């Protein structure tokens, strides 16, 4: 049997010996006269839906698909409507995505093998057009990208949306720089002793280091390093390390230690200025075992300065445990201003950046996304299915 079709609107069928047209036809009738009584349903065409315009309630949910990680995915949901809008197939070891400032494109660092799990390895930043959430181009990068438990900092983007940085580990640490506008790999920058990407402007970024500092990099227009520096040590990694999961507001990154201290680091011109640490917990709360923990357990609302932190009661080494509460802080006053009881335990949280913000939470082992009103704490939506092992949500 062979066939051709025209613009998805019809089909010219030519049957081989094995297919009997009569058998097919008795099954189908395109009725031209209405039957008795009500008008029958009309014949329909089928088509491909178009994505609605981006709204502040768009949330991308990373799904490494842990038990089928060659088949990584990213889900786009409308958190307010509680709907899945679309999906991206993103290949092996999907960690984090970079969303263009105008949300016209999404950049995904990913790994491919020519034969699924063997053959030639290709690492690339794949450029997805947001309109169809489909890959339209790729920029091949050195096959060195770091992978593991997904974290936001495995990649980063310059504030102007031109450079995407991809963390490498071979185990030597470095990062690749891609110009996603020119769709060109610019180069690889060594970052020994430091890991992950924390963008701090249009041509600057920082990386967290095992000696309790951040290393800062300033780049030129072709991605070469023009300045590199180490901050003063601002935490003791052997006593109370900061986790890799941080939040940014303006040009300040907020890091969080295992024991619940906030370490703000302000960046200016690419240079790091660690600020005094402050505690998320009172002594009493700390005595009661309250801790931070999870995956991307913190999020910040840029405009209103609220910090949202998933907390739990636990012991030492519980820094990856999920929590049933989000504690809300005012970054200006450092005061705890609210407590949100979650419907389901969570390891990661994102907050939409509009004036009626929503909290989006997930935990790794459940294919469920929960949406809360960030102001009232009320459960707004539960979106079931989709991401099999959601790692963390990202908002544009």
């Amino acid at each position, binding site marked *: *049997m062979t*066939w051709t*079709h025209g613009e*998805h*609107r*019809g*089909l010219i*069928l030519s049957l081989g010996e094995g*297919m009997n047209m009569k*058998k*097919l036809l*008795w*099954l*189908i*009738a*395109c*009725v031209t006269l209405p*039957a008795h*009584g*009500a*008008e*029958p*349903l*009309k*014949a*329909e*065409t*089928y*088509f*491909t*839906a*178009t*994505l609605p315009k981006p709204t502040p309630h768009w949330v991308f949910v990373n799904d490494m698909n842990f*038990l089928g990680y060659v*088949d990584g*995915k990213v889900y*786009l949901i409308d958190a307010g409507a509680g*709907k*899945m*809008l*679309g*999906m*991206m*197939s993103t290949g092996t070891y999907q960690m984090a995505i970079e969303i263009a400032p105008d949300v016209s494109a999404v950049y995904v660092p990913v790994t491919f093998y020519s034969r699924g799990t063997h053959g030639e390895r290709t690492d690339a930043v794949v450029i997805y057009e947001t*309109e*169809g*959430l*489909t890959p339209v181009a790729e920029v091949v990068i050195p096959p060195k990208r770091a992978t593991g438990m997904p974290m936001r900092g495995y990649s980063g983007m310059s504030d102007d949306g031109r450079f995407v940085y991809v963390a490498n580990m071979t185990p030597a640490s470095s990062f690749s720089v891609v110009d996603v506008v020119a769709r060109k790999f610019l180069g690889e920058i060594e970052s020994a002793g430091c890991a992950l990407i924390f963008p701090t402007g249009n041509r600057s970024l920082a990386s967290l280091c095992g000696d309790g500092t951040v290393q800062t990099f300033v780049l030129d227009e072709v991605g070469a390093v023009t300045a590199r520096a180490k901050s003063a040590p601002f935490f003791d990694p052997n006593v109370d390390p900061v986790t890799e999961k941080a939040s940014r507001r303006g040009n300040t990154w907020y890091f969080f230690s295992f024991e619940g201290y906030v370490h703000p680091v302000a960046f200016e011109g690419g240079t790091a200025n660690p600020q005094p640490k402050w505690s998320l917990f009172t002594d009493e709360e700390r005595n009661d075992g309250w801790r931070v923990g999870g995956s991307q357990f913190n999020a910040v609302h840029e405009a209103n300065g609220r910090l949202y932190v998933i907390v739990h009661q636990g012991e030492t080494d519980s820094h990856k445990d999920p929590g049933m509460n989000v504690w809300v802080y005012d970054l200006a006053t450092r005061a705890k201003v609210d407590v949100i009881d979650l419907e389901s335990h969570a390891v990661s949280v994102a907050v939409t950046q509009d004036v009626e913000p929503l909290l989006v939470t997930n935990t790794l*082992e459940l*294919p469920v996304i929960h949406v809360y009103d960030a102001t009232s704490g009320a459960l707004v939506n539960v979106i*079931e*299915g*989709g*991401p*099999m092992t959601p790692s963390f949500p990202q908002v544009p």
Partner: protein
Amino acid sequence: MNFFDRLVTRSARRIARATSRRHFLARFGVALGGTAALPLLPVARAESTSPARAPQPGEQGDPTTCEYWRHCAIDGFLCGCCGGSANACPPGTEPAPVTWIGTCKNPVDGKDYVISYNDCCGKSACGRCLCNRNEGDRPVYMPAKSNDLNWCHGTSNNIYHCSTAVVLGLALDD
């Protein structure tokens, strides 16, 4: 033993014992998305001016549930849960031009309609609203009526994402 393992195994065992086989399958049945060899006959051309969109006024039910009447012979992820609808592929996916069909009774008018379960292709499994119902389903050597085949053919590639349920018209012999 993995994390799904413990969860899934135990609860599913309970469910398996507590519910009828049929009910079980209706809720948890598995199988690969759509398909088989059947043309989308010239139906579409008939109404190029104002094509009907699902769901239509003369029907009821939730197209994002397995119980929706059009799904009587579907096997796959419901596109309505994936960013599409009963007759729309999700953004960026490509509808397969041909597929398998079922004959389903619309409870509103009591009439039997031929439903075309065109697959949407180009992205891997949507993962939501997996639905397997087998009314009139036939083996793959009768592809036009078999819901076990992957029908991402005639598309850029054969990567299956979800399945639609498009009204083709009234069934003749009912």
